[in-house]
């Protein structure tokens, strides 16, 4: 009879499957960061004056700031002068006009990632704005979306074609001085996605971006801005993978969501950045600021995330519930294995009356994985009738990993109702034995139990993403029956 824990080990120690590199020529700035770097990035992108000024202001703020120390993560100090801040595949310099013009090497990369761009787009009705390192290489379905007045393009394009929208909304959710990494991103961000849904329009398809860090030593600083105007609806999917490397790579993105009156934004992420090897060498440092602003009454923003990758994750997708009756949701599955560290959670800031928020967080730790849930629920004085429900569950596989929960609750209005539930459990020996006694392999038994544990979050994901998420957790598809 084999020892349970050793078999468990085999399953949770699967090798990273997206660790290949694409050989394309790159147009790259030298290492290091200075005012000159910021000016060069802005110039390469042919940006309007206001944006350069904005970047420079952010850079100057950043110089005065220091990295946050409060998170439960540990890493050697990052040398910001040893990072390349801009890298664009050279063959993309003039920008592809259509998919046919896209470098076949790049398209192959996406195919290896499981997103054959054209097919996927056609079959699934997904518009993919694929970001390859710093430049958006292909955007599909733009024309179809344009019929509805929807703008879905790379951030750089938005700067060229819709500078007034960029100017109006950029930095209004995550101000440049918000935190160290957000300030850095504001100074040097290279590209990302931009979405604008006009009033009353329901976006007819899921919008999807695949981010991928390719070139060595390239910090990736994307910037995403999504605006749902009054009564608009959009569902946005973000997926991430990165090739295998020994050195650590920094990824400091900023995502801003704005929902005006009666608007709704659903933002889903499956993050599978390279987590480093078993000893903790290499892997992505994922220091991301994601925030949504429910600016109008009856607006709604939902974050759903499945985080399985990165060496270190530092991420708190948040919602500011400004409008009355606004709704904020956060559904999260985070998995840490080997030496991975994750400090993740959310902030729900209730400002409007009768605002509601729901937080469901599922943490899975295996190996020496370290995980912290850090959540803030703040009910402002004016937020009468506000409600929050928080549920944080941790599942431990093996006995060398750990999970911690840090819920912060600040209530300034007596009519508010805040509920918090938390649980920590080990994967049940009884459950595993039961599943195997019914004929399932150890691997399938673990998958099934973990999958069941994450069920409440997976059901929030769009179908195809749910499938991917389950696969990512080494789980076969549940729900093929019934």
């Amino acid at each position, binding site marked *: *009879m084999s020892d349970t824990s050793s078999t468990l080990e085999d399953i949770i120690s699967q090798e990273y499957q997206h660790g290949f590199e694409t050989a394309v020529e790159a147009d790259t700035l030298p290492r290091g960061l200075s005012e000159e770097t910021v000016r060069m990035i802005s110039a390469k992108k042919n940006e309007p004056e206001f944006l350069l000024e904005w970047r420079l202001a952010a850079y100057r703020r950043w110089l005065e700031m220091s990295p946050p120390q409060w998170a439960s993560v540990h890493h050697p100090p990052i040398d910001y002068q040893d990072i390349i801040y801009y890298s664009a595949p050279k063959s993309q310099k003039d920008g592809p006009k259509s998919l046919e013009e896209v470098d076949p090497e790049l398209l192959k990369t996406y195919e290896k990632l499981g997103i054959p761009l054209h097919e996927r787009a056609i079959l699934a009705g997904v518009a993919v704005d694929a970001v390859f390192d710093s430049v958006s290489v292909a955007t599909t379905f733009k024309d179809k979306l344009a019929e509805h007045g929807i703008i879905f393009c790379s951030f750089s394009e938005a700067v060229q074609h819709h500078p007034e929208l960029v100017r109006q909304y950029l930095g209004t959710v995550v101000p440049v001085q918000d935190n160290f990494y957000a300030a850095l991103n504001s100074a040097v961000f290279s590209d990302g996605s931009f979405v604008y849904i006009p009033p009353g329009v329901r976006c007819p398809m899921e919008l999807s971006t695949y981010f991928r860090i390719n070139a060595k030593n390239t910090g990736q600083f994307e910037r995403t801005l999504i605006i749902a105007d009054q009564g608009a609806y959009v569902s946005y999917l973000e997926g991430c993978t990165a090739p295998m490397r020994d050195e650590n790579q920094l990824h400091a993105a900023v995502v801003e969501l704005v929902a005006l009156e009666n608007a709704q934004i659903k933002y889903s992420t499956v993050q599978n950045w390279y987590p480093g090897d078993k000893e903790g060498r290499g892997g992505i440092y994922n220091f991301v600021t994601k925030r949504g602003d429910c600016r109008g009454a009856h607006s709604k923003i939902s974050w759903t995330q499945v985080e399985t990758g990165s060496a270190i994750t530092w991420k708190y997708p948040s919602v500011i519930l400004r409008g009355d009756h606004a709704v904020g949701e956060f559904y999260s599955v985070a998995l840490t294995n080997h030496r991975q560290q994750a400090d993740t959670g959310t902030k729900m800031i209730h400002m409007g009356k009768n605002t509601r928020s729901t937080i469901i967080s599922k943490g899975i730790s295996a190996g020496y994985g370290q995980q912290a849930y850090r959540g803030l629920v703040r009910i402002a004085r004016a937020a009468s009738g506000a409600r929050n429900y928080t549920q944080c569950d941790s599942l431990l596989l093996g006995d060398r990993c750990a999970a911690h929960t840090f819920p912060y609750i600040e209530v300034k209005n007596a009519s508010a109702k805040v509920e918090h539930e938390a649980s920590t459990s080990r994967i049940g020996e009884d459950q595993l034995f039961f599943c195997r006694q019914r004929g399932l392999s150890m691997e399938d038994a673990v998958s099934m139990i973990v999958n069941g544990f994450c069920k*409440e979050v997976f059901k929030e994901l769009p179908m195809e993403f749910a499938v991917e998420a389950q696969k990512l957790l080494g789980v076969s598809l549940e729900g093929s029956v019934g």
Partner: protein
Amino acid sequence: MLIIKELHAAVGDKPILKGINLTVRAGEVHAIMGPNGSGKSTLSNVLAGRENMTVTAGSVQYLGQDLLAMEVEERARAGVFLAFQYPVEIPGVGNVYLLKAALNAQRKHRGLPELDAMEFLALVKDKMKLMEMSESMLYRAVNEGFSGGEKKRNEILQMAVLEPTLSILDETDSGLDIDALKIVANGVNSLRHPERAMILVTHYQRLLEVITPDFVHVLAGGRIVRSGGPELAHELEKQGYAWLGSEAPEGKSSAT
């Protein structure tokens, strides 16, 4: 089908089974009775391959194979089924999903084509009728929020779907109301077959009235201290286990 010889097993360093001898042939139904803590569940779990129980001596042959050398899932796929005394809950995993995955894992092992969703549903609904279970149970998470009796019925549903060669039912009758007991008994009886065998662990004669066993064994202090026909169960019902004290535990311990 099953030949257990001088089986000793321990939990941690505490010896529980102290020399079990038992032979079960195809077509037979054996009942195992005995006081609380005598080792009935331990025996059942050792046969199923539970890891935290160490076999310290003895052998078990199942269909000519060395059962103790097989992994838990290999035993299951070879047709060994254990209905648990305390069925576990698996939050978030649909009952129907578990059943389908289990059946297909076993079919695959036997070289049979896996059943698709439609075929499987037809099969399982049929079995549910037999168990008089409501269809809604299929879509609930495995045993989550099930009543004690519903959990036991669910175990028998799994048995009915998997059609095992050797079924070990550990106190499946405990906690069942009279109607449920009949339903479970019907389920069990419908699986009786010249090619299959069953071991029923029970404390009560009432189960043995509806499922007549071929043999009854009394397990006490980690050994089978008495074996007999169905009449032994009647006797026990009347006398209890007080007589055990006077009977040497070395006593007759094989049944064939």
